[in-house]
């Protein structure tokens, strides 16, 4: 099996109902076996191009096509099985309930004879390094495993062109490397052409031959060998939000230099165990225990550790959303403000001005039909007057550059805008403690920098920040303390580093990066 050739001449696509084309005037020639990284600011039509190459853009009803886009000289919709596409979201690509069946799904659709399917399935699973029984339930896989499963499903179809649309944006650092190496191993073996979209250039930089930068105004901004494109266009791309290793986003300064060890303690955990109560059960299943932590006003604590160690469950527990499964969690009076010391026993409304939670998936927390109403929900629940509500909402709209979207539906915003809005909704009630779950996952460098700057300002005003994160840059930029969850044979345990020496070290490196 050889790689596929991709040619575009004056190609463009306008989604039905949109005034502007998503892609226009594209000329491109990708040789068989080439490995190409496609970059461009958001809105440059990268995903549209990938969907078009995979033949899933739809027909005349779904949009207008101009020019010509060909895979091996044929229209992509006629080159079925020649092209395989892996998408960003690991959860929405699993089709069937068992690992083997899911990998076989694509082969079945291509009418591969049964006797040939199972050897292909075995080969594909081996290529992506997923060493699991064929009957293993797909629901029990981690995010990185699900992405490798999706990749195996594509590889089993033996495509000449492999398309990856931000395949690692939702994965932890180990998952990212897992998936990238699986991709490389398999295209190496099959000689397939590879096209990748990815914000984080560092992941692919050294393994692709060529970078193509799409121009949001149409056509191509730059096209050539990796190094020359990065040196010519790196700065401009970085300004547009692409993560370029040589041009990291700026780190904020934090007032106060080192953190004050005498700062007020807001929340303390003592031998805390956390877990969730499974559906239709009474008792929680403990995922982490033996956790000790003191959250001080004006400090940022990072909760880190591999997937599955219970970081999110811990965050939800500290945020007063889940009841502790054991041990003690106590809010000091500075946080409780007259209520009892157990945050999970507080009323929903009482949490607002005390603990704010930003969920990993912003869509989970949107309730209103417009951005403006979304922001007003918290202040209204607090019982603030109309004038004060408007004032807070307007201030946040302006501060987070959401003014022009005030009347838009939150679900229609871009990924970065959704993230900013989800943070803004929480800030609207001015909580003393802010809990964030993976706030920087999948964000471009511009949104990242804005978020970090905003959190630094909040820290300086005395708000405490607790963040679950895999993002070392984020830890470096903000964290005063780090709680690392380590997996053990049983439930995970935590190890908290809060000495001032570590704090100083973290800050010092933040300073160097910023210069």
């Amino acid at each position: 099996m050889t790689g596929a050739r991709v040619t575009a001449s004056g190609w463009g696509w306008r989604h039905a109902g949109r005034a502007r084309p998503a892609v226009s005037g594209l000329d491109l020639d990708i040789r068989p076996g080439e490995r190409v990284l496609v970059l461009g600011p958001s809105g440059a039509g990268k995903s549209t191009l990938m969907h078009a190459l995979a033949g899933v853009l739809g027909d005349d009803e779904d949009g207008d096509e101009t020019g010509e886009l060909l895979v091996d000289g044929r229209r992509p919709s006629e080159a079925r099985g020649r092209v395989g596409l892996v998408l960003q979201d690991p959860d929405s690509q699993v089709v069937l309930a068992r690992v083997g069946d899911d990998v076989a799904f694509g082969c079945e659709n291509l009418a591969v004879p049964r006797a040939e399917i199972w050897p292909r399935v075995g080969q594909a699973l081996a290529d992506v390094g997923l060493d699991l029984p064929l009957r293993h339930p797909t629901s029990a896989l981690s995010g990185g495993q699900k992405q490798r499963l999706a990749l195996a499903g594509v590889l089993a179809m033996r495509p000449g062109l492999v398309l990856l649309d931000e395949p690692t944006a939702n994965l932890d650092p180990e998952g990212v490397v897992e998936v990238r190496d699986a991709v490389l191993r398999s295209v190496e073996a099959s000689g397939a052409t590879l096209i990748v979209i990815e914000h984080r250039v560092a992941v692919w930089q050294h393994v692709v031959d060529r970078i193509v930068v799409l121009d949001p105004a149409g056509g191509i901004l730059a096209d050539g060998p990796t190094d020359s494109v990065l040196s010519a266009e790196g700065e401009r791309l970085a300004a547009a939000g692409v993560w370029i290793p040589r041009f990291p986003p700026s780190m904020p300064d934090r007032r106060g230099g080192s953190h004050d060890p005498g700062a007020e303690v807001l929340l303390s955990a003592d031998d805390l165990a956390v877990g969730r109560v499974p559906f239709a059960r009474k008792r929680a299943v403990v995922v982490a225990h033996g956790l000790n932590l003191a959250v001080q006003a004006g400090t940022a604590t990072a909760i880190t550790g591999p997937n599955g160690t219970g970081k999110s469950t811990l965050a939800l527990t500290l945020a007063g959303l889940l009841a502790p499964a054991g041990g003690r969690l106590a809010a000091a009076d500075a946080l409780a403000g007259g209520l009892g010391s157990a945050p999970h026993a507080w009323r929903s409304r009482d949490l607002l001005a005390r603990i704010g939670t930003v969920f990993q998936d912003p869509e989970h927390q949107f309730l209103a039909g417009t951005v403006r109403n979304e922001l007003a929900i918290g202040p209204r629940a607090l019982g603030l007057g109309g004038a004060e509500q408007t004032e807070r909402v307007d201030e946040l709209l302006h501060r987070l550059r959401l003014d022009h979207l005030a009347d838009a539906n939150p679900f229609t915003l871009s990924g970065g805008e959704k993230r900013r809005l989800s943070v803004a909704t929480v800030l609207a009630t001015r909580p003393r403690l802010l809990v964030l779950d993976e706030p920087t996952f999948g964000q471009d460098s511009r949104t990242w920098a804005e978020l970090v700057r905003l959190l630094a300002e909040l820290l300086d005003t005395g708000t405490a920040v607790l963040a679950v994160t895999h993002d070392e840059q984020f830890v470096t930029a903000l964290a005063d303390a780090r709680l690392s969850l380590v997996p053990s044979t049983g439930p995970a345990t935590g190890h908290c580093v809060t000495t001032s020496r570590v704090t100083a070290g973290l800050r010092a490196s933040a300073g160097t990066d910023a210069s």
Partner: protein
Amino acid sequence: MTPEIRPSAIARVNPVAKLAVALLISGALMLSIDWVSAAVALALEAVLLAWCGLSARQFWLRTAPVWIAVPFAVLTTVLYGKDSGAELFSAGIANVTEGSVSLALAIGLRILAIGIPGIVLLATTDPTDLGDGLAQVLRLPARFVLGALAGLRLVGMFIDDWHSLALARRARGVGDGGGLRSRARRFGGLAFALLVLSVRRGSKLATAMEARGFGSDVPRTWARESVFGVRDILVVILGAVIAAAAITAAVLAGTWHFVLA
């Protein structure tokens, strides 16, 4: 969402054969409302349960809905069912007569005799195997069968999503308080949010399936062969025998009451 299927004689039977048995028995029992046919069917089914491989705990847990439904159905029929024969007890509109008691007995047994095989069928069948059977043995359209199968996987995510949405609402300050009306409104809002989330998930899944060559007009192959063998035919015959025995017993006992007559 996929329950663990323990290996058993019934679990090995082709799901299509099991489906046929369940349909045969319920079809026969729907033709009449009398206690003899339902009791005979139930007794014969009880014998077969020994081969289903369910533990006692699993059995009671899964059939719990039926056991809960039966007393309600029986009680309402006893009190308000069509009266005939000697009156045993009367208070207001509630009349207990020999006729309403025997009708209640017939309905209660019927719910059990129809409900239990259906539940056992589900508990011993992997949805993927059922899909294979429906597409390969019954030749239902692949698009329909696989669409349903992929959709079923999304149902498993509902519980997690519901939980996350509820937590998010609590964090947004609108998670509790208020009277019955605001509670109902909250539940409605949550259900709608879940619907929106599911539709978005579904459309992403559809794209992913299409990207793997699903939905074209070219006939597809099936990686897992669904075999309908001698054993499966025997199982269907067994189902027919149970249905026939139930009808015959009722006719002989003189209780058969054809509902369409």
